[in-house]
């Protein structure tokens, strides 16, 4: 392994630099744009030297955009809040429903058990619009269109399979012996589940929750079909913002930056579990 030639080491270095350039440049460039005025963005040739301004962020946070033609209301902060609310609540609901189910699939061999588990898994792979389009008509008659409850319900399609299969893997990795001992000591299964199994699987549960949060946050199509402007998360909101503001490129960039920061930060926390989560427990990092 160590008899690599100087030539090879240089080649590897160059390739690695190109890889980092390709994957990091867009993030770097959008970050720069978010601190620029429109005039400086439109200047040709593009330059990394400019006087930074926080105006784009201020406009987004205060919800008011001053243009030559007068001021325009923005509701980007509402989108951001919707993203927080939808993702957090969806993950909480999915954990409450998914963790007990995951425990059942891991610990009990029961008829239909695998069938239910695989049906839930198959949601991960079905085309979302297959369900969403008829659902949009149902939601209309049920009065669930453009409600948080309706959205949180369909977000379970993302969260539940993820949580179920990752947490199941964690429960299966735990030896059932401690639980048996606890049961023999006279505790009910629920006490055992709550006091022994859940705490031991907690790192896995937390990782699955973080991942489910990231996937909910990044989802686009569910809210595009089922929500109007006031309930839309950042993904859909940012796109609508592009259409509405048209040429406020600096603010679009700032909106993108604010929308990706939460998932970037969480990914750094969940980094260790990311491999396992992304492969639904098939690969360990």
């Amino acid at each position, binding site marked *: 392994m160590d008899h690599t030639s100087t030539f090879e080491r240089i080649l*590897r270095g160059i*390739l*690695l630099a190109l*890889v*980092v350039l390709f*994957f*990091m440049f*867009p993030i770097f*460039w*959008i970050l720069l744009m978010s601190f620029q005025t429109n005039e400086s963005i*439109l200047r*040709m040739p*593009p330059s990394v030297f400019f006087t930074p301004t926080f105006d784009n962020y201020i406009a987004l946070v205060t919800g008011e955009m001053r243009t030559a033609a007068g001021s325009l209301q923005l509701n980007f902060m509402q989108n951001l809040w919707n993203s927080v609310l939808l993702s957090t609540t969806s993950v909480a609901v999915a954990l*409450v*429903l998914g963790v*007990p189910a995951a425990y*059942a699939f891991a*610990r*009990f061999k*029961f008829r239909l058990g695998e069938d*239910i588990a695989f049906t*839930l898994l198959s949601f991960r*792979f*079905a085309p*979302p*619009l*297959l369900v969403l*389009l*008829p*659902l949009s*008509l*149902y939601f209309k008659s049920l009065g669930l269109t453009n409600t948080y409850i309706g959205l949180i*319900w369909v977000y379970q399609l993302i969260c539940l399979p993820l949580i*179920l299969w990752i947490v199941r*893997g964690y429960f299966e990795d735990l030896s059932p012996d401690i639980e048996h001992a606890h049961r023999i000591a006279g505790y009910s299964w629920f006490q055992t589940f709550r006091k022994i199994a859940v705490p031991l699987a907690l790192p896995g549960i937390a990782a699955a929750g973080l991942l489910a949060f990231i996937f909910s946050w*990044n989802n*686009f*199509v569910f809210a595009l079909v089922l929500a109007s402007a006031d309930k839309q998360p*950042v*993904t*859909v909101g940012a*796109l609508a913002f592009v259409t509405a503001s048209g040429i406020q*490129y600096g603010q*679009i960039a700032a909106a*993108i930056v604010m*929308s*990706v920061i939460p*998932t970037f930060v*969480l990914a750094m926390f969940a*980094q260790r579990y*990311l*491999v396992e989560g*992304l*492969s*639904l*427990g*098939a*690969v*360990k*990092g």
Partner: protein
Amino acid sequence: MRKALPYLLSLPALLMCIGILIPFFTAVYYSMLRYRLNLPAMKGFIWFDNYINFFTDPKFWNTLKISLIYAGLTVVLELILGLVIALLLQKRSRVNNFVSILLLLPLMTAPALAALMWKLMTNPNFGILSYLVSLIGFPDMKWGSDPSTALFTVVLVDMWVYTPFMMILLLAGLRSLPTAPFEAAALDGVPRSFVFFRITLPMLMPYLLTATLFRLLDSIQQFDIIYAMTQGGPGDKLLVFQVQAYLDFFQATNVGRSAALMIILWAITYFLSNIFIKQWLKLRERAHGAA
């Protein structure tokens, strides 16, 4: 009680399932209707006419063709690039670990937002990429809005987002391989190309297969990137399954056609996911021990 317990525990999740299965069966039913939201009087059951009509519908063949090309291109390119990067980062070192964490960021970017980022960078008036390609002899590249480069542009965005997915799965695979065969090969002075093609690749095969199928399942259904970038345009250049179904439903309000299109896509993904799940279970058992 003991018998009922697992059912009770999984019941809430199961109910959630059923709630979703109803719209699925509705979609099957809709796909056999002549059903346009703007012409409610024409609504009627027509059996498989929506599907039969597809055979003579050039729009449908275009959708199928574009979807397959898109999925094929993205998966093959991401697989090759992901494997190259995983091999570059295989050795555990501070730099390599740092780079592999950095590469998670594109994957953590919402695909719709990634498309917007690239849209800003490829804007013909001020986009940095438009400027850079003009320096090397493409002064008027229109990226997503030019029929001849639209596919290239969205494939590039897809690669930016999802290559890291391939990379981290393959990197985990590479690092989990037993070291003995490699040590033996090094002792015997076996050429490295031989080691790669006869030892590394075969041993990595389960990971390559799982990663490829995983991406194929997602890529054939791509919606976010394409919709956010071009909304399926220019013309019919990027009308993949889900974008076409979305437009059929909301613009043409042709519910029947849209549902039939989604059922066909579902059949494709169902077929693929069956192969995938077998492969995935094998790897999962290896990671967690027999279930």
